[in-house]
Every structure is written in structure tokens, then in C-alpha cells.
């Protein structure tokens, strides 16, 4: 195998107010033709910096200190900028995370592809148009002749990412760099995009550098894997051996921190401490302060590469002293007794939602006449027992967040009943509502937007208490705030600091402490971990489980991440286009899903266990776009994407079929 891209000793630095950050330290690897090389790691470890350094697209404050990037004999770091422009796009294509912002909104999709083709002198005029059309077809855009002249805003997220891939590949580059290509997409769309990339790689033979934080995606896509930590590659190996036997203690810990059905009922393994700031000069191993196996040598001497027993052609190596000393760290920590029962307190229903509707009017014209409604939530019924966790699962745009906000009356529901602890909240007078607000709280997704940057942490936590008159005086509230901080695992001096001094995970803890301050019985968790890294996610999930055990709070867990659901949910409700299509206990929904949509969702999740041999999404009909909630399809909303749909499905919305006492499915074909 000859390498098409060779990176040697790459050092990238960034200048910041806090000093020079060593963003990349001695990064070396090579990618062969037709190979997918995955770079994984948590945020800030240097994954994207690697890609940007190769493309020489670094931000202004960053520079490459030393190193070598060779692409088929071209020394990229020595090329003048005008020659580098020929390399970008022609030799090395790149796709970015956010399809919405990487396409030019004022050019049609066709024009954008033609521009690339003409820029690199591959084709011009009518020939270029024909080629662009061909590429749109190849990336699986339905009706490409018409889509050629569409603007990006007319396409869905998945379609935009397909256009982006066409754009990156139309000049047939030898190397494709995919920087988190599916992170912004839903699982079903992610599965399609990953399939598409594999297919294109097979036909083009290009090398692919895949950058991701999702080990599931790695397991599905990669031939070889590199794990990064604090600006350094610490383990490189073939996919099979990396997943079967991670060498570095960090890798082992990372696997153990992944939630899933195996970890159900037991706390997740977490990694103590935090990633060290990259402004430090490292003497020893960067992971040593957090490593359970660290000894004197780890602190003093930076470990070199050490091979594990080679398996076949690819070597599997890691930077760890333990390997040299012949002492391979133990394998993945075994989770506790498999599928141990989650703690459950049975006290009957705490929250009962019947037929909740939230419709947003669409207004047009001079007098803002209402011409229609976006039915964001269209008749949702839920029951949450005291001290239980209900997971509300669905793809983006299905209305799950709106359900959460509707419950808290942050958005006024249009119809339906919300009974909380025996009291009706929908349409209740303002006074009753205000009282009930302390019983239900919310934790948001984005830990950076959910805390007021101008308030001290103590003030943030005390705000709710002051609003409800809890805690007689300032001193009492301060005491309470201190004890809450301790409970969520933050130091007491955090009270006098400002949110910007904390990391994402710590901010999420502050948000949880803020919610707990008013002693709620139910916390709506709106994707609380989706902005966090795996190891931090594990800490937050453990914290939520502990709080539930100690305080008996019920959780409404809104998420699209099925692995998290498998880990902690008692009950699951699957939402599609404003309605719940299937609900039941976790076991029923995850093991014996009846609704075709639930089945498709579960099949689309990339899993480590399956690897590349995992069944691909066979149902191509699922690839159709999510219909608009302003104009949902007649009958069963899902029939436009369902392989089992019949004429009957389009006739009427299916009534609930009762499978068991808890398990309900809205599908006429459910067995």
C-alpha cells in the first residue's frame, strides 16, 4: 500500500491571551489509497487542527511550527499559496460539519459545483453542467436536473450535506477530509451519508481522513483509527484491534464511559480530572494525572510509541510506558451485572399529559392573517411516574423540545391537558402557574447559552429561590447554594465566580444545581449531554442518576441519542412529526420495537459492537425527507417514508394499538 498522504512531526501552535497553545504536538500518520483513517478524540484535542493544518487553512492566530505534509510527493507546507489553491479542492477535498453554513446561500447548487469544476480546469460550460448533474445523481439527490437550479435554503440538511459531498468530490481528489461530516445530522440521515461515503470511496478509491468524536461512526467507517489526546496522537491501530483491545488506558476509559444497554443500572465509568491546558510544557505523559495506572516514570518521561503484538499487516501502537513494561492495562472495565434493574419508585403518575397541542400560527400579508398552523406538537399524551425517567426520542424537528417547553408553559399550549400532581396546569390562572413553576424545572442543551454571563454562579443558583421566596434571607440562600454546589460536585468557591470560568460539563452542573434549587419534582432535561464529550457526558448522566436516587425527582429526558436512552430510561416515547408513534417501557421499545419508525431509528444507530458488518439501512424509502409539520401527510404521518406502507396508511391516522399494559403503537401494520 502506498501512502497518498503522509504527515510527519506536525507541530501547530496558536497564540492566545493566555499564552501559546500547543494545538498539535508531533502528529505523524499516513493514509493509503482507498483507506479510511479515522481521527477520534474529545473536543479540543486537536482533531480539527490536524485537518486545517493539512489544508493550510489555519485561523490567523495559529501557525505551523514544524513538520511535513506530503501528498503524493508534493510537499504541501513548502508550496506557495497560489499553488496550494490548486491542491485544495483538486487534490484534497474537504467537507465540514455544518452543511447549512458551508454552502453559499446566494448561488444555486449547480453553480457551486460548476464553479469548482471550472476553477480547477476540469470542465467548462455545458460540459461542466453535465458533470455537475452527474455528481448530484451520484450523491443520491432525487430529481437532480431540477435540484441543480435550487438554492441551498430549498434543500434539507441531509440534501445539503450531499451537495457538499458532491462539491468536495467533483474534482476527484485523491484525499477527502471529512471533519465531523454527520454530527449535525439525525441518525437516519447520518446512516445515509455514511453509506454514501463508503460507496463513493469504493468507486473512486480515494483516501479518507475522517474526523469524529463518535466511536460508533468510527467503528462503522474506519480501516485504521488514531486516538488523540491533548494535541497528541496516543494510539494508532486497525479498527478491529483498536476496538477489541484498546492499548492506552485513556482509550479503555473512554470505552467504559460510553452509555448503552450494557451499562444500564450501574454508574458509568468516568475519567477523573480534566484535560490539562495545552499552554503547559509537558514533561511526562499528558494523561498521567488522570490515569489509574500512572507511576513515577509517567510523570517524568514522555512515553514513546510502543507496539502491541502485531496483528497481520497493520501495527497497533500506543504512547504508554506500560506497554514497554509488558504490562498491558486490563481490558474494558466490565459493566456491572448486565441490565441490572434501574431503581424505581412506584408512586403512580406525577405528570399526566393528555392530547397536548402546540400550534404556531403562520401569518401572511399586510394584516398578518393566520393562513395556517405549524403543528409542532399535535396531540401528545404522556405519563411520567414519580421518580421515573421518561425518554422522549425523535429526530430534530419532530417537536420534542416544544413538548418540554409546552409542559413548563414557556410556550403556551394550544390545547390539551397537563395534570401535574393532581392539578390542572393548562389554562390555569397565573397564580397557580407561578406556584407550579417550582415543581417543574428545565435543564437546557447548550451549557454556554443557559447561564447568564454577567451573573455570579451563586446569584444564578439563588435566582429561583429568591423568586419563590425559598430560603428566608440572603444568608440562608447562600448556604443552600453552597450545599447544592457540593451536591453537583463543584467546589464551594465556585459561588463567587462567573460562568465563563467553567468548562462545558461544569456549566451543565451549575444548570442542574440551579434547577434543583427550587426542589422540583420533575426536571425536563432537553438534550443535556449532546453538547458534551463522552467522558463528561458520563459524569452528567451519573449525576442525574444519583440525584434521582437521592431526591426521587422524575426526569423527562428529551434526546436524539439512543445510547443514552438505553442507559437510563425507564420508559420511552418515540415522537414523529408532533405525535408519539410508540411508547412503552424501555425494554419493550428497545428490544421489541413494533413501529417501523422505531425500528428504523434503532437500526440506523452506528454501534461499536457491530463494526462495519452492521446491517446497513436497507430501507431506502427512509431516505426521503422529513415532511413539514405545517403540512403533514394525510393518514399516518410516517407512510411517506415507510417501506411497509399501503394505501390504507394514507387514509387515516392509526389508532393506538395496545400491545401490553404499557406498550402502545400507532401503526396498523404492527404485529
Amino acid at each position, binding site marked *: 500500500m502506498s501512502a497518498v498522504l503522509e504527515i510527519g512531526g506536525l507541530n501547530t501552535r496558536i497564540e492566545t491571551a493566555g499564552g501559546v497553545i500547543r494545538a498539535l504536538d508531533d502528529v505523524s500518520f499516513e493514509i493509503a489509497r482507498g483507506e479510511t483513517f479515522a481521527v477520534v478524540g474529545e473536543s479540543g484535542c486537536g482533531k480539527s487542527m490536524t485537518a486545517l493544518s493539512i489544508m493550510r487553512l489555519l485561523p490567523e492566530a495559529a*501557525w505551523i511550527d514544524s513538520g511535513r505534509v506530503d501528498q503524493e510527493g508534493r510537499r504541501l507546507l513548502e508550496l506557495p499559496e497560489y499553488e496550494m489553491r490548486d491542491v485544495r479542492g483538486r487534490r484534497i477535498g474537504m467537507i465540514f460539519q455544518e452543511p447549512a453554513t458551508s454552502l453559499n446561500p446566494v448561488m444555486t447548487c449547480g453553480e457551486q459545483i460548476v464553479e469548482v469544476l471550472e476553477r480547477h480546469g476540469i470542465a467548462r460550460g455545458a460540459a461542466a453542467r453535465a458533470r455537475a448533474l452527474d455528481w448530484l445523481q451520484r450523491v443520491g439527490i432525487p430529481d437532480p436536473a431540477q435540484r441543480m437550479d435550487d438554492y441551498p435554503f430549498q434543500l434539507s440538511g441531509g440534501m445539503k450535506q450531499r451537495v457538499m459531498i458532491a462539491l468536495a468530490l467533483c474534482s476527484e481528489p485523491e484525499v477527502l477530509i471529512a471533519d465531523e461530516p454527520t454530527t449535525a445530522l439525525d441518525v437516519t440521515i447520518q446512516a445515509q451519508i455514511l453509506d454514501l461515503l463508503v460507496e463513493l470511496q469504493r468507486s473512486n478509491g480515494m483516501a479518507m481522513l475522517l474526523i469524529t468524536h463518535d466511536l460508533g461512526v468510527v467503528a462503522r467507517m474506519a480501516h485504521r483509527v488514531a486516538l488523540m489526546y491533548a494535541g497528541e496522537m496516543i494510539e494508532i491501530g486497525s479498527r478491529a484491534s483498536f476496538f477489541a483491545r484498546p492499548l492506552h488506558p485513556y482509550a479503555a476509559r473512554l470505552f467504559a464511559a460510553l452509555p448503552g444497554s450494557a451499562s444500564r443500572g450501574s454508574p458509568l465509568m468516568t475519567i477523573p480530572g480534566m484535560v490539562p491546558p495545552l499552554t503547559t510544557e509537558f514533561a511526562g505523559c499528558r494523561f498521567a494525572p488522570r490515569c489509574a495506572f500512572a507511576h513515577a516514570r509517567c510523570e517524568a518521561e514522555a512515553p514513546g510509541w510502543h507496539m502491541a503484538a502485531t496483528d497481520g499487516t497493520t501495527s497497533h501502537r500506543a504512547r504508554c510506558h506500560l506497554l514497554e513494561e509488558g504490562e498491558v492495562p486490563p481490558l474494558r472495565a466490565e459493566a456491572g451485572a448486565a441490565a441490572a434493574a434501574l431503581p424505581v419508585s412506584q408512586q403512580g403518575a406525577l405528570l399526566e399529559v393528555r392530547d397536548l397541542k402546540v400550534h404556531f400560527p403562520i401569518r401572511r400579508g399586510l394584516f398578518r392573517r393566520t393562513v395556517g398552523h405549524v403543528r409542532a406538537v399535535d396531540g401528545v399524551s404522556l405519563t411520567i411516574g414519580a421518580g421515573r425517567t421518561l425518554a422522549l426520542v425523535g429526530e430534530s424537528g419532530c417537536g420534542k423540545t416544544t413538548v418540554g417547553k409546552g409542559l413548563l408553559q414557556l410556550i403556551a399550549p394550544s390545547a390539551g391537558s397537563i395534570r401535574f400532581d393532581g392539578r390542572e396546569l393548562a389554562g390555569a390562572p397565573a397564580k397557580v*402557574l407561578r406556584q407550579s413553576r417550582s415543581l417543574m424545572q428545565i435543564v437546557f*442543551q447548550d451549557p454556554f447559552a443557559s447561564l447568564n454571563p454577567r451573573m455570579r454562579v451563586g446569584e444564578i443558583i439563588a435566582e429561583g429561590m429568591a423568586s419563590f421566596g425559598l430560603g428566608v434571607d440572603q444568608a440562608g440562600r447562600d448556604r443552600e447554594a453552597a450545599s447544592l454546589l457540593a451536591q453537583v460536585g463543584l467546589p464551594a468557591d465556585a459561588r463567587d465566580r462567573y460562568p465563563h470560568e467553567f468548562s462545558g460539563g461544569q456549566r451543565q452542573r451549575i444548570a442542574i444545581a440551579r434547577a434543583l434549587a427550587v426542589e422540583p419534582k420533575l426536571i425536563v432535561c432537553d438534550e443535556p449531554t449532546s453538547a458534551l464529550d463522552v467522558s463528561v457526558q458520563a459524569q452528567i448522566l451519573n449525576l442525574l442518576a444519583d440525584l434521582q436516587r437521592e431526591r426521587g425527582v422524575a426526569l423527562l429526558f428529551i434526546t436524539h441519542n439512543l445510547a443514552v436512552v438505553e442507559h437510563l430510561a425507564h420508559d420511552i416515547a418515540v415522537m414523529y412529526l408532533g405525535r408519539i408513534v410508540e411508547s412503552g417501557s424501555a425494554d419493550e421499545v428497545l428490544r421489541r420495537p413494533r413501529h417501523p419508525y422505531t425500528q428504523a431509528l434503532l437500526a440506523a444507530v452506528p454501534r461499536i459492537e457491530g463494526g462495519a458488518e452492521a446491517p446497513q439501512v436497507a430501507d431506502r424509502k427512509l431516505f426521503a425527507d422529513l415532511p413539514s409539520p405545517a403540512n403533514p401527510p394525510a393518514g399516518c404521518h410516517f407512510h411517506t417514508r415507510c417501506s411497509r406502507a399501503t394505501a390504507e396508511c394514507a387514509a387515516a391516522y392509526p389508532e393506538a394499538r395496545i400491545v401490553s399494559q404499557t406498550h402502545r403503537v400507532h401503526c396498523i401494520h404492527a404485529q
Partner: protein
Amino acid sequence: MNFMVVVLWTDVLLFILLAVCLAYARHAARRPHLRAPWARMARSASGMAAATVLSAFALIGVLDSLHYRPLIEAKPGVPGPARYAVEVRSVLDLVIQGVLGPMAGKSEKTYSAPLATHAFSRENIERPGPDGKPRQVREYPRLANGGAHLKDPAREWAADVATHAVRGMVFGFIAWLALAFVLLGAYAANHQEDGGIAGVWGDAWSGRGRLPWRSILITLLVICLCAGVAATLGSRYHLLGTDKVGQDVLYLALKSVRTALIIGTLTTLVMLPMGVLLGIAAGYFGGWIDDAIQYVYTTLNSIPGVLLIAASVLMMQVAIDANPGWFATAAERADFRLLCLCFILGMMSWTGLCRLMRGEALKLRELEYVQAARAFGVSRLAIIVRHILPNVMHLVIISAVMDFSGMVLTEAVLSYVGVGVDPSMSSFGSMINAARLEMSRDPMVWWSLAAAFFFMLALVLAANLFADAVRDAFDPRLSPKRRRRGLLAKASA
């Protein structure tokens, strides 16, 4: 007491504004997130140089805002209550009089060029003729004060001017050394810098240190040199000439500084509450409140500003003329007119800020910490005060600083058009207005206009540079430019 303190309305407001600024500085100094952007600003060389110039102007403005009426010397032997002069004077007048002596104020008959010893135009003068009879001669008469100490101006003038200019520079330099010593000493004492004042001095010139002392000191040196020359030459000649009625132009320009500062700051003060509160209300509440506020500012924006201002000023002038009893002195009347002008300008110029605030509130309203506060049942007013207002303050500061220079220029335009400040009050606009007709004279009377131009340029340019530095420091999206480093720099070099 040999004077009576006079407090004008604009003085009160100016000092309130100063107090608010000081209170804000104290408040911000204790909060790291508020202090950080100002500390960033303090590292900008151009910003600090501009701040130095602005401080000099502010000092002039503040001195000119301490007003009093001097006691009229009672005739000896006549008992009765103390009587005070009708003319309201300020501390600045006192200082200028002390430094410039007879040059200050109205001391010549009419125009004279800068540093002149003779009048600008010929006059008929009676001279004893050779036969002893008085004879009418038409010549340039000597000035009453300018260069009066010279016996033979034609011979002595150049040497005298040069000597005094050099002396002025020496005085300026000495003053600068003293000032620098005091400033650096205070800084070293406050920050416990190593090496004390000598260490700070060394750091300042080598460009190390945290503050751009070099730019500050150089700016200060230029100001001190100008002031020194103005003091020595200005007390012997009319440094910038005299105007039509023989007033010293330098004196007029210095007196105009306060007018410009008052217009720039008080207008902002009037406009801030309207712009900020209405803007946030429109953005946060939405619905019919938003519609109403939007209609108001859209309508206001579509009427030509000068037209509206001219109409308002004329109405106000009628009211003032109809009620002469309102004011004890001419200065009070002029001051009232200035205050009204500030209000009128303020009412006309809040729309831009309002629009900015509305957009920001629309964005902040959807942020999760505001949602979280709503989930706690926090009242809407409390949400605006605690969550929205602190998060738009940086924009308010940026726009207030940027609007300042615009207001100074607007005043000049309005006074030029004739709807600006009272004719008895000196302002850059009135100076330009007065100079405009003399531009066509030959030889040209250029110094009035030039003086107004340069003073205004210095003030507005400093304000703009300061505003740029503030914006850079407060806007997190802008990062300072850096030079390329590393491999690529070597390759392209």
C-alpha cells in the same frame, strides 16, 4: 466672599454624568467581566493616546463648567448689600485671564492676523506732520495689545516670537516632565511595579509594560508643548489672530470646547434611556408594543432631521423671547437654549440605538438563560433588568462613544445653519458661521475657520479613535491582527 457661585443646568447635568461615570468605573473595577474589556482597551496605543487628548479637552470643559459671578467693588463709604456683576464667568476664564493677560477676550477693534502687531486693515489716523500740524494718514495701526511690548516691530518681531516660542517649549517640557513623574509615580505605587518609577519609566520607553505608556507620554508631550507655546506667545500676541469684533480666536476656540462636549455628552444622556428602554421593550415584549415602537421610530426616521430640529429650535426660541423673566443673566438664557438643543437632538437621534437594542433583545429573549428565568417565574421587569440589560450594556457603551463625535459635528452644522446655540455662546459652529463671509475677502481671513477646524478635528478625531478602541475591546468577534509565523512565513519570505 468676593464671588457668587452660579450653577447652570448644563453644569449640573455634566457633573451628574461625571459622577455616574465614576460610579460605573468603581462598579466595573470590582467585576472582572466588566473590567476585562476596559483593560483590553487600555492596552491599545491609539486608544490611550486618544484618551489623553480627550482628557485634556475634558479638563477644559470641566473648568469651563464651574461658573461664578464676581463681586462688584462697592464704592468706599457706600453701605448696602454686596452686588455681583451681571456677567457670568467660569474658572476657565480666570485661568485664561491669568495666563494670557490682556489678550483674552475682546481686546482689539477688529480683525488681526495670527501673531500680528498691526491691524489687518488700514485706518485713517491723525499724525503730526512735519510741519507740526495733524495730518490724516491711512495706514495699518498698531494693535492695542498684540505685540504692544515691541518698540520696533519690523526689526524685533521675528526674534521676539522665536525666543518666546522656545521659552514656551521649555516651559512645556518641564511641565511634561513633572506630569509624567506624577503619573508614572502614581502608577508604580498602585501596581507595586518592580523598580519603582525608574522601572516604569524604562518599561514605558522600551514598549514593555502593560499600558502603552510611550504613546500616552508622547501625546502628553505634544499637548504640553502646544500649551507652553500658547501660554508664552499667547500672552504677548494674539496667537490665532482676532475675529471681526476683535476677540482673541484662541480664547474663543477654548470656550467652544465646553459647548461641543456638552452637546456630545448630554445628548447621549437624553437619548440613552429612550433608545435602550424602548428598544428592549420592543424586542422583548413583541406584539403590539413592538409594532407601536417600530412605527414611531420609522416615522421619526423618515422626516429630514434638520427640518425637525430647526422647527423645534424656533419654537423654543419664541418661548425664550416671550419670557425674558425666566433668566437672571444672558448666560443662563444661552445655557437654557443649549440644554434645549441637547434635548431636541436627543429626541431625534435615539432611533438608531433603539433599532440595535430591539434586535439584540429579540436575540437574547430566546436564549436559554432567559427561558430558565421564565421557568422560575421571575417577573418580566426583573428579567429585563437582570438578564437583558447587563448583556446589552457593551453595545450601549460602544454606541454612546461612537455617537459622541457625530453630535459634535451636528452642533457645528446646526450653528452654521443658524439654529444652533445662542449667538452669545461661543461654539465651533458659530465660529465657522462667522468666518464664512470673510473667506472671499482678499487677502483672506482664514484664521477663525482654521482654528475652529483644527480644534474640532482634534476633538472628533480623538473621539473616533477612542470609539474604535472601545469597540475593538468590547466586541468579542474582533481579534487583534497578528503577524504570520512558523514554517509558512519562512517559506514565503
